[in-house]
């Protein structure tokens, strides 16, 4: 792929065990800047575990994670966030009692205060810069209409966009999206992904997204990682990965729609 210079993310021999259960093993990947990587695999294949290790939610049992030449293995999540890796969640994680704008403003203000304790106590939440940043991101994700709506009453799709927007408002260089379209109806999925992906492209963000819908993967990914039983069984362009016989055999939904990407390209 367009592997110019050092990879932004390099994962080596990563492994995670829970007691006797091996949730992830022998994971080796390196991702060049600005690539969009689709992550596929059956339920329980280890996709979320993989993302949780990169973002510091879980400490790897073995192996190393390099981000922009810095070893981030085992760092706490908030430090990893500050280094420039953000994430969204399989189930959208927003602040339900706050409005869309307040959610975004909090995320923007924290990102600008660089998160250290003294900074958060001495910086006003609603600084003009944070307000401008929050407003710009609300617009970028096309949820301006819901700006003053409390997050607990949002439609699922808007909640997802807000969740991702709150990760993007910090200007991360690497973004991990865990099933951005889960809980979204088939008709809405492509619209949602179009909004998300054009927003991320406009900010030159490197993306890893977990997705079960192969049409979406084929349409939006530059590269596909296929997970099975905690490890990567295929890594290549969407065509290479989705046509791989083992992937077709082991991951449901791949074989059903061969070459689906073309329909939406």
């Amino acid at each position, binding site marked *: 792929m367009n592997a110019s210079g050092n990879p932004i993310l390099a994962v080596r021999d990563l492994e995670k065990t829970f007691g006797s259960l091996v949730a992830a093993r022998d994971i080796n990947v390196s991702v060049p800047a600005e690539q969009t990587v689709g992550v596929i695999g059956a339920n329980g294949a280890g996709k979320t575990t993989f993302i949780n290790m990169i973002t510091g939610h879980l400490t790897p049992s073995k192996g190393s994670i390099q981000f922009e030449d810095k070893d981030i293995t085992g760092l706490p999540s908030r430090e990893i966030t500050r280094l420039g890796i953000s994430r969204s969640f399989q189930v959208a*994680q927003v*602040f339900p009692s*706050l409005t869309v704008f307040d959610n975004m403003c909090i995320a923007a203000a924290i990102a600008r205060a*660089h998160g250290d*304790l003294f900074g*958060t106590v001495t910086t*006003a*939440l*609603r600084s003009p810069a944070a307000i401008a940043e929050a407003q710009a991101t609300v617009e970028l994700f096309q949820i301006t209409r819901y700006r003053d709506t409390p997050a607990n009453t949002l439609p699922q799709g808007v909640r997802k966009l807000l969740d991702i927007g709150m990760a993007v408002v910090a200007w991360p260089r690497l973004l991990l999206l865990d099933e951005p379209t889960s809980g979204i109806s088939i008709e809405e999925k492509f619209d949602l992904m179009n909004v998300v992906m054009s927003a991320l492209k406009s900010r030159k963000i490197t993306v890893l997204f977990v997705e079960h819908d192969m049409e979406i993967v084929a349409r939006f990914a530059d590269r596909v990682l296929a997970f099975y039983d905690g490890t990567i069984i295929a890594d290549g362009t969407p065509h290479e990965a989705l046509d791989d016989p083992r992937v077709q055999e082991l991951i449901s939904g791949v074989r059903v729609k061969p070459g689906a990407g073309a329909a939406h390209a």
Partner: protein
Amino acid sequence: MAVRSRLAGVLAFLMAAAAAPLMPDWVVSLATIAFANALVVLGLVVLWRAGLVSFGQALYYCIGAYTVALTARWTGFNDAFGLVILGGIGAGLIAGLVGALIARYREIFFAMLSLALSMILYGVLVKTESLGSTDGFTVSTPTFLGFALHGDKLGLALYWLTLGIGAVAAVLVGIYFRSIAGSLAAPIRDNEIRVEFLGVSVTRIIHVKVVIAGVLGGLGGALAALSIGHVDPAMSYWTTSGGFVFVTILAGAGSVAAPFVGSLVFEAVRSFAVDALPGLWQMTLGTVLLLTILFLPDGLGSLATRWRKREGAKPT
């Protein structure tokens, strides 16, 4: 709106300061105690907003009070302002230690650990005969910038000191509420995981809240000690903590002024009930709490908000 409520706060402060010389002594001392206690309640509001209740805030109240009493007794240092600041610092240091332990706990565990720590202090003080055990001991009369005052002048000076420290604390806590760390109270209540992933340590933010509440509790206890002229272990007893939580519910967490109004109402109701309905004081208290929770779940402070909303709705 913000400008108007700030203006109202300044006016209320000036009126409270100017009216004092016209009020009878007992009203001045009642208001002094009310505002001293309001500082403790303001600290509880800081915690409350993040969904945390401390049933042991009397710990800091008591530490503030004993810091004042012991400093005066052991060193002879007598300046009221200096003593109160020491009380705040002493309680803040203890809160820093306590926070390292309890900032990881939530809900009933947070509440009960606070309670346990305050009862440990109570137990220690009761066992310390050199400090008068359950009787406590007398606090020497403070001086003000080198002036020794007596009688009603002393009462007035303490009142103004309390009012002034209360006003400064209210302004500072107001600024804190508008800071990022202060604004994270609702998000922490809502979703701690998300706060962590935004790059902030929830534990540290709560630790800061514990220290702020501790300093405020210490200042309140220090002022109360000077005003009452006496300290005893009951200042750390769980009923004292319960009283502060009571006033917090009565006042509500809506504004930094509410604790002062709520505490004044509480002390007024108490002195009325103790005089007029002897023996029925607890029942009166219970009834007031019940009515507050049923009809004013957001406390007395929410009356002002409702009023403002109604005014705003009116065409002008």
